[in-house]
């Protein structure tokens, strides 16, 4: 289940509507961009909330091109986002309801934003801080647990049923989210979220490296071996090395980032996967995965 969710989250990121390519980037002055949680001590199987908060100086009706963190250690139950524009700028807040199924330390990767910096007119990628949380295990000790073994069994059954119901509900919510990815504002949130009390975000922001994102691209291409994914991964890789919209492979190969032979191999292999005939697609995707692995090695 966790693996499936991880993959779904990665797929979500890579197969999201082609924001970087289809939509022009927004011109924004980012003053703060944070990732936080509404509790410092989440508990296993108890939903809690992650909050992505962004403040920009401009007055904009919506914020595009936000990439959610890749959720590896928690299950996403739903999310809600609000955008409030006022005289001081625009506040964007995305509240993601999650649940951890295992106790122990969990790490959440940063959320990202692509925008043109209004101060210097350059396209930039912003990242929030990453987040490390310690999930407490489910406590089995207590007077009730000690008093009656029958009640114990009954309680376990009820917990099991509740867990099953939550999992099924979460799956349905996730499918709905995947099908209707990122509307401007959800009319009815998938999961009712109480007003969260954010904890202070850790000061050190972890920048998600280009290499990490190439790794994500490889994971998705290995798992979802078809033409649309190959085309999307090609677009993501081109975006990562700063290729402009509407360029051709020859243009991209002339950029400094493509000067490295292993990167040039990746670009050529992905081009083949995007344009070759159907019978060759499997081999082309193998070639692209191998080239990405060589690049990451």
């Amino acid at each position, binding site marked *: 289940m966790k693996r499936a969710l991880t993959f779904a989250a990665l797929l979500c990121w890579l197969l999201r509507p082609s924001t970087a390519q289809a939509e022009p980037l927004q011109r924004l002055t980012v003053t703060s961009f944070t990732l936080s949680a509404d509790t410092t001590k989440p508990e296993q199987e108890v939903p809690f909330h992650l909050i992505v908060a962004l403040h920009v100086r401009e007055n904009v009706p919506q914020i595009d091109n936000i990439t959610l963190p890749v959720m590896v250690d928690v299950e996403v139950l739903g999310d809600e986002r609000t955008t409030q524009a006022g005289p001081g700028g625009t506040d964007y807040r995305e509240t993601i309801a999650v649940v951890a199924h295992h106790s122990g330390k969990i790490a959440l990767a940063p959320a990202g934003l692509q925008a043109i910096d209004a101060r210097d007119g350059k396209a930039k990628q912003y990242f929030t801080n990453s987040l490390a949380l310690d999930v407490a295990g489910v406590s089995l000790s207590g007077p009730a647990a000690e008093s009656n073994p029958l009640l114990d069994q009954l309680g376990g059954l009820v917990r099991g049923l509740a867990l099953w119901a939550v999992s099924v509900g979460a799956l349905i919510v996730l499918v709905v989210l995947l099908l209707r990815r990122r509307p401007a504002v959800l009319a009815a949130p998938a999961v009712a979220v109480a007003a969260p009390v954010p904890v202070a975000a850790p000061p050190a922001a972890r920048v998600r490296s280009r290499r990490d994102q190439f790794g994500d691209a490889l994971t998705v291409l290995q798992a979802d071996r078809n033409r649309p994914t190959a*085309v999307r991964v090609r677009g993501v890789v081109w975006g990562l090395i700063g290729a402009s*919209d*509407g*360029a*051709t*492979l*020859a243009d991209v190969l002339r950029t400094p980032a493509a000067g490295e032979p292993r990167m040039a191999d990746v670009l050529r292999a992905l*081009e*083949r996967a*995007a*344009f*070759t*005939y159907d019978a*060759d697609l499997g081999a082309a995707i193998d070639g692209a995965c191998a080239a990405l692995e060589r690049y990451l090695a």
Partner: protein
Amino acid sequence: MTQPKDLMDALSETIVGQHDVVEALLLALLSNGHVLLEGPPGLAKTLACRSLAVALDGEFKRIQFTPDLLPSDIVGTRVFDQRETAFATILGPIFANVVLADEINRAPAKVQSALLEAMQERQVTIGPQTHRLPDPFVVMATMNPLDSEGTYALPVAQMDRFLMKVNVGYPSREQELAILDRFAVADTQPRRAVATLDDVRAWRERAHAVHIDEKLKRYIVELVAITREAEHVKIPAERGAQLPASDFIDYGASPRATLAIAYLSRARAYLDGRDFALPDDVRAVAPHALRHRIGFNYRLTTEGVGADRLIEALVAAVPAP
């Protein structure tokens, strides 16, 4: 089997600095089309043609177009044989694998028409008999842009029959030095045969089978469509003005341009050793297929824009997939 790349290498041994001409000849050969070359005299056009024929072990013929040329001088004629008391057919110089039609715009319309009809039909009718032209058959026609007095401009419909038009420019200083080194002391005759006519027929079949993805097909259609709807493409003209590209165009390219771009893209991909075409192939060949199929008006000259710059802007305005 010899590959087209080997043929290209062999031609490059003889011809210095005319990569576009050599590539155009090979693309036309692989696409089963014909080439129109425009450029000043002395740029190795004849040498390129003759070298191609020699490299293929094929037959080469050169026809110098003049105002007094007759259609029968090209396609052939029937003469009465008094000894046999019957008409005999003398086939014209068009019956060759590689034909150089030198200064095609110097002959009157009916002669041009005879040549272009033969190019299209790949057969010639002389008297009651129809004769198939050899296969492969590629015509390279030249036009001289410098000396236009006493010429007969090719009608648009006739120009459309050429698969591609290539502008031939002067070589660079380094290339000219190489020409001096290579040809000042040696014979300019082409080298040996590196492929056979059967090889060419096999290459052509493979080039025809090269895959073009749906995304690329849409890209090709958009490239041709923008020549007809070029209002939003701005072209820098004289005195810093930005004029819409449509101001310079009377009519856009025909659907034959769409087909030509697809054929040439396949051929270029095959020449590069691939069995699928890429956006780079389309973008590289598009100017060759569009150049002679767009009706430019006088403003192109008066505003100092130039056909190639306009086409470059049109191609750049369509994002590659």
